[in-house]
């Protein structure tokens, strides 16, 4: 599993807020994601009804996931493929590296896969002497930079065009240094030209999966670049690296959820490519991989079944929650410190790496509710962030100052007469401090507030005092 800097979230966030490139990239991304999704939703009157259907499909699947997983495995076998069960990231890595070694792979092409990030697959491949090549443009860019994705569908959203051009000039040294890279189309063209050769050279193609279909043993990916098709069709073997909650019962179910996915993610009706893979190349097929493997990762997901966080397993990784999250859009994805950023990460990360290692994430929300409002799978993200805070509180993990402040508030708020006195006293102190200006520029114990803004002073008397004197 990749290492986490989630405990340093606040420090990460401070750096992110001072990073001018990141802030400029986010200010471009922010309105685009929101406008496009809203327009796509408005064009589909049954959007909200589809959300209900999609939620029900996943709830049904999760309620019977043992049966569907068995059915899925049987179907994959029937088509000539193989399913490998991985309880942990270590197991998943060992399986993939083992398969690549057996196939004597020197290079592997990779379609976009967050599970491969979760298990830190690229590093394991490199350590085994195998060269992984990311073929999704965003993933390709961050691989050149030695970075991690900062967004689950737009991995390089933290960058602007000029960084990308500089990276291409730095790495693609075989191309003329004076070439024109001012247009996005030429940048894409350059990456495409380089990746074409890699597809043909690769011994193994690794992709993720958006859905696994129990009825047919099919895995489905969606892309906009067609890179997934070339990654999985040309090499000797196709390895699907995925996790158990991607399962749905039927192709029909996947079709229903697909109608929500691109609209929620990029505001497209559908992604440019929706690719279905069912087993290896059959006799008579014009192309396809000689072997088809599915590595099914659990990594704590089965522990979420039947508990407070089961709803999170409905997530289809569209990214709408982070696209609409004011906290994500302020600090970007790297600040979250692990694989999954934004609201979905704030719920999923503690489930997978422990709340003791990531409690700052579910706390980093104003509970504004915009994530839940746009979630195509109707996942109650704020409610589950609150559940993590409850676990944190119950296990005495929250900071001592916060705990004692809360205890003091709890003591006073349960004693109305003491509360009225505290309110009166607080009022008098604030009123004195605010003085004639009527505002406080530096408030002891509330420096976190007054560092950035004034504290407006109170009116002459508390409501209680005035209400008592009110003429009847």
């Amino acid at each position, binding site marked *: 599993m990749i290492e986490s800097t989630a405990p340093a979230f606040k420090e990460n966030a401070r750096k992110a807020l001072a990073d001018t490139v990141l802030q400029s990239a986010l200010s471009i991304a922010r309105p685009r994601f929101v406008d496009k999704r809203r327009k796509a939703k408005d064009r589909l009157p049954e959007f909200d009804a589809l959300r209900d259907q999609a939620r029900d499909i996943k709830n049904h699947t999760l309620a019977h996931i043992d049966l569907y997983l068995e059915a899925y495995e049987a179907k994959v076998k029937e088509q000539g493929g193989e399913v490998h069960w991985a309880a942990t990231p270590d197991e998943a890595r060992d399986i993939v590296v083992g398969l690549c070694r057996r196939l004597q792979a020197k290079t592997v092409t990779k379609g976009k896969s967050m599970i491969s990030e979760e298990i830190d697959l690229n590093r394991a491949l490199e350590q085994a002497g195998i060269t992984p090549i990311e073929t999704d443009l965003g993933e390709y860019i961050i691989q050149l930079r030695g970075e991690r994705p900062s967004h689950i569908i737009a991995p390089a959203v933290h960058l602007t065009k000029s960084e990308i051009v500089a990276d291409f000039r730095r790495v693609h040294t075989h191309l003329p240094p004076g070439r024109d890279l001012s247009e996005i189309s030429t940048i894409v063209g350059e990456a495409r030209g380089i990746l074409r050769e890699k597809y043909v050279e690769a011994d193994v193609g690794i992709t993720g999966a958006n859905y696994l279909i129990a009825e047919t043993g099919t895995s489905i990916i969606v892309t906009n670049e067609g890179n997934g098709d070339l990654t999985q069709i040309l090499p000797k073997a196709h390895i699907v690296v995925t996790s158990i909650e991607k399962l749905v019962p039927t192709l029909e179910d996947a079709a229903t959820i697909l109608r929500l996915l691109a609209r929620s993610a990029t505001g497209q009706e559908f992604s440019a490519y929706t690719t279905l893979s069912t087993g290896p190349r059959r006799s008579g097929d014009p192309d396809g991989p000689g072997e088809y493997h599915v590595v099914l990762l659990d990594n704590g997901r089965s522990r979420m079944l039947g508990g407070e966080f089961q709803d999170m397993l409905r997530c289809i990784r569209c990214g709408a929650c982070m696209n609409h999250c004011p906290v994500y859009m302020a600090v970007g994805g790297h600040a979250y410190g692990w694989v999954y950023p934004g609201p979905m990460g704030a719920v999923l990360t503690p489930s997978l790496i422990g709340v003791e290692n990531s409690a700052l994430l579910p706390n980093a929300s104003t509970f504004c509710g915009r994530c839940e409002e746009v979630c195509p799978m109707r996942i109650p993200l704020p409610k589950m962030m609150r559940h993590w805070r409850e676990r944190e509180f119950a296990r005495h993990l929250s900071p001592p100052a916060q705990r004692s402040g*809360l205890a003091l508030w709890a003591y006073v708020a349960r004693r109305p007469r003491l509360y009225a006195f505290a309110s009166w006293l607080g009022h008098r102190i604030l009123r004195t401090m605010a003085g004639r200006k009527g505002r406080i520029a530096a408030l002891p114990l509330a420096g976190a*507030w007054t560092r950035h803004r004034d504290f407006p002073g109170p009116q002459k008397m508390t409501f209680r005092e005035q209400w008592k004197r009110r003429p009847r």
Partner: protein
Amino acid sequence: MKEKASLTERPPRVGLFVTCLVDLLRPSVGFAAVKLLEDAGCVVDAPLSQTCCGQPGYNSGDRHTAAEIALQVIDLFDPYDFIVAPSGSCAGMLRKHYPALFAEGTPERMRAEKFSGRCYELISFLADVRGVETIPVPCRRSVTYHDSCSGLRELGVRAQPRRLLASMPGLALKELHESDVCCGFGGTFCVKYPAISNAMVEHKVANIEKSGAELLLAGDLGCLLNMAGKLTRSGSNIEVRHVAEVLAGDTSEPPIAGANRP
């Protein structure tokens, strides 16, 4: 669901949930709420042994304290026909979250469910329950309106304040870009994550400045204090008030921020 006011019915008794911030900092919002409710034919009382709705504990993971405070609020306000708060956040706590504090099937849960159905945010109560459609008080100001998150998304407060404001003779309503995006207050969030909260309120204040309005309104004092504090710190002259003060036609108190502050 609309229960329009009728001449024959007994005037409803409303318990005003003042909210801790209004009590401490801006009682004029409470009195504006009282006036609006009385104008809408209600008999209003503000029981003074009220404290807090329990949100600080609830959102910090202390469910047990939140549940104890919920029972205290339910006991105190049970005699009233309706419980109304000049805050989407506190009203959301009473209406949407109190039942969730108690296990299903328990007597407390049943009590909380019966209680929460009678709890409302002020402006939506006036419009949706009391059928208030227009406010005939003139107000010659250009105003913009920020949708506080809890009111907007938990209680569906969106059209009601805009409709009532637009009915005031002379008032020009200028829409705020991204009016539905959080201002960065978030209760304890603003002190737990000050740098992020600051980035959010900076973004909000930039949009407020761009609206061209002279007066910013919202329905939650927490958000208003956050935005007002940022506006005065950045030297802006934009006035800030709770929407109830303007609707009640009582702007005798200086605004939370802005021009006529001494």
